[in-house]
């Protein structure tokens, strides 16, 4: 199994004469193609899940880590003054890149999923939120809390770590499960192809015996089977991958409201990833059939 390119091309181009030596089998061929297609289809989703949760974990881990929220809970008449004071403090805090009080519209948008549209935010005792963006170095949260406590009594700093950490852990775990699923799907594919190949080899025992008798080398006999199963797995997996990618493409795209669900799918160059599934499928089939053929041939004289 050397990754020799010319050998690979010759292998795929095939030997028409060698192909004819093994009788064609319509039904098992279709089963193999179906199994490969189904497995590729599932792999596309496992891959989409892994990549999407990977993206979420990265985003929560990175983007949100650099953002924090300051909540000003003060009586209505003091809110504007305390907000201005807090912004002054933040402007002079080293490590804070930007600080901005959310507008009424933005606050309303945040509450909309819970209270519906047209909430009269202004007339409600809703705390004012200030979005704080850190620079790369980050700020000293403890120091900032002390200063705020002194100058803006109604301010509460939330640096997101409290709820961010379990989410990142969950996303990481999901990503791991996704890759584990892909591994399991690959192993199951190998098992199925091995069984199909074993069945084909057993069914063609007489053919193999005749070929051995007339001086065919093991590699030649195995090649006839290996090529067949590799091509079946390749075509099946290609079909399954295309269908899987279409299904992912046609997933209803969740807007910003859906938060967590956003982007279960592929983004940008990640669309290249599923394209390796047929190649992986073919490689798995190649290895599995090669193993099965050599095991079977060794037992023959």
């Amino acid at each position, binding site marked *: 199994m050397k990754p020799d390119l010319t050998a690979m091309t010759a292998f795929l181009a095939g030997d028409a004469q060698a192909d004819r030596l093994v009788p064609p089998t319509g039904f098992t061929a279709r089963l193999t193609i179906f199994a490969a297609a189904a497995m590729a289809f599932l792999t596309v989703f496992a891959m989409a899940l892994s990549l999407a949760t990977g993206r979420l974990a990265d985003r929560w881990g990175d983007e949100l880590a650099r953002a924090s929220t300051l909540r000003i809970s003060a009586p209505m008449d003091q809110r504007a003054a305390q907000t201005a004071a807090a912004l002054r403090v933040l402007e002079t805090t080293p490590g804070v890149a930007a600080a901005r009080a959310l507008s009424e519209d933005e606050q309303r948008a945040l509450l909309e999923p819970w209270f519906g549209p047209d909430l009269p935010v202004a007339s409600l005792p809703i705390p004012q939120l200030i979005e704080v963006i850190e620079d790369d170095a980050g700020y000293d949260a403890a120091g900032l809390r002390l200063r705020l406590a002194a100058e803006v009594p109604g301010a509460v700093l939330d640096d997101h770590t409290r709820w961010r950490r379990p989410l990142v852990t969950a996303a990481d775990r999901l990503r791991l499960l996704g890759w584990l699923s892909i591994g399991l799907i690959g192993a199951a594919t190998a098992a199925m192809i091995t069984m199909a190949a074993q069945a084909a080899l057993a069914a063609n025992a007489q053919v193999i015996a005749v070929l051995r008798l007339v*001086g065919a080398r*093991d590699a030649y006999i195995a090649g006839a089977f290996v090529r067949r199963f590799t091509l079946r797995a390749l075509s099946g997996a290609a079909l399954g991958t295309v269908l899987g990618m279409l299904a992912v493409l046609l997933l209803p795209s969740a807007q910003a409201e859906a938060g967590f669900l956003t982007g279960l799918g592929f983004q940008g160059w990640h669309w290249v990833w599923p394209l390796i599934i047929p190649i992986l499928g073919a490689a798995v089939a190649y290895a599995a059939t090669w193993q099965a053929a050599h095991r079977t041939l060794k037992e023959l004289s």
Partner: protein
Amino acid sequence: MSYGGGELFGDISLTLSPGSFHFLTGPSGAGKTTFLKLCYGALLPTAGHIRLFGADLRTMSRDDVALARRRIGVVHQDVQFLEHLPVADNVALPLIVSGHDRNSEAENLRELLKWVGLSHRADALPAELSGGERQRAALARAVIMSPEVILADEPTGNIDWEMSQRLLQLLVELNRMGKTIMIATHDMNLIRAAKSQVQARVLRISQRRLQTAGADL
């Protein structure tokens, strides 16, 4: 050589010299087929040595055995073909598996089929052939690579006298071309018929020994 627990042969020593013609005879179950299988490397001896074209069978790899078989034509008792391919392809099988270009050998194949009298059956499937036709197709397949040795196991077992005469004729012709021939048979008439045409030696397996049979045959 032991088989199924008991020793089948012992103290056998034989060298087939190029161009010789041997008959192998003996009662059923004496081990004629086993002996032939040893001769083309389908079985390994439990003791002793077998040399194919000078190489010890025990030290030969599976590929070495495959290559040696291209120099040995085998006609089996129950001839097996690739049943889904026509006779012409089956006869050309040794060429195909050894990577020869079939088209350049097309003339060769046509002549060979004519020689065994199967030209008109070239496109038939093996299942459509009669017993005699199958044996002759098997002989054609055995010789298409122009092997140095031809081993035939009861080649006339299932066919009538006239047909077996014809098959024998083909084997005698091959021997005259310099091929080494070994035929396992218990058909004494066949042996007598052959002896009138070629210098044939008769080997007999009995009581686990290989003996040169007397001239009384």
